[in-house]
């Protein structure tokens, strides 16, 4: 394995860490070709930093969806205000 101070230029399983970073969304969205996915998986199996980072990003997204996925209903005074404004426009 390459020296840890190579940073994002570190190559593990013939894939550079910077490539994993660039393609992380394709991996998370499942839009990556099978062969490429296997290459990235091999990299992740041997690279703690990328595996941990990919997991962190995936968790943040999952938690964003869980926490904010359902929009907060409009407070009744705001909904009333919207309705009144619409009525004026519809009457005009």
């Amino acid at each position: 394995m390459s020296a840890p101070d190579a940073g994002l230029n570190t190559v593990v399983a013939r894939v550079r860490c910077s490539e994993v970073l660039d393609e992380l969304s394709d991996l998370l969205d499942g839009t990556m070709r099978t062969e490429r996915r296997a290459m990235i998986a091999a990299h992740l199996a041997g690279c703690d930093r990328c595996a941990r980072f990919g997991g962190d990003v995936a968790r943040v997204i999952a938690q964003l969806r869980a926490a904010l996925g359902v929009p907060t209903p409009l407070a009744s005074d705001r909904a009333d205000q919207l309705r009144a404004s619409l009525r004026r426009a519809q009457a005009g």
Partner: protein
Amino acid sequence: MDQGSSGAESHVKADAETDSAFLQRAASGESAAFDVIVARHQAAVDRFIRTLGGVDADDVLQETFIAAWRGAGSFRGTGSARSWLLSIARNAHRHQHRRRVDEPRAFVPLELLAQRAGWSADPAESRRTDAVLAADLLTQALAHLPPDEREVLVLRELEGFSGAEAAGVLQLTETAMKSRLHRARLHLAAAVYELDSPLPPSGGQHVGT
């Protein structure tokens, strides 16, 4: 309706058809039909506007639905009513906001965002990533992102729009939308990392700068 489709698909399709039918009736002047559209979508439209920020959300919300009422006849039903409404909301937001969301700005390389999100952190330094992040912290993190990144996250992650649908609302190619989404996700992870870290990262760089 296609009787061979699954229950979930049928449900989605039925909703879409109903929205379309209500908008048709609204186009012929039936305000009660439009009230149904408002009731169904006002919370999501409001969330989108408030996520973009920098405006009086009530003004933009009203402008959006008034424009939708007036333009109900232009809804073609090729996409969802939700994406049609969010496109109108986006335009209404732009009318009221001095700065366009796609205005050129300082470019932060992806690698720097990754570093800020903790890519190079020592694995021994424990992070609280397994803990459930509070909605407040996520809202705060989202607010650190540039508006164009916030809106793509709302469309793809919160609304669950397909890539094509999100690209349609943003008037981008799907490739450009994907690139923006990727940057937005890393930026969000960086903002969460900085807000959630017990100790601030060294170097004095912050996601909001």
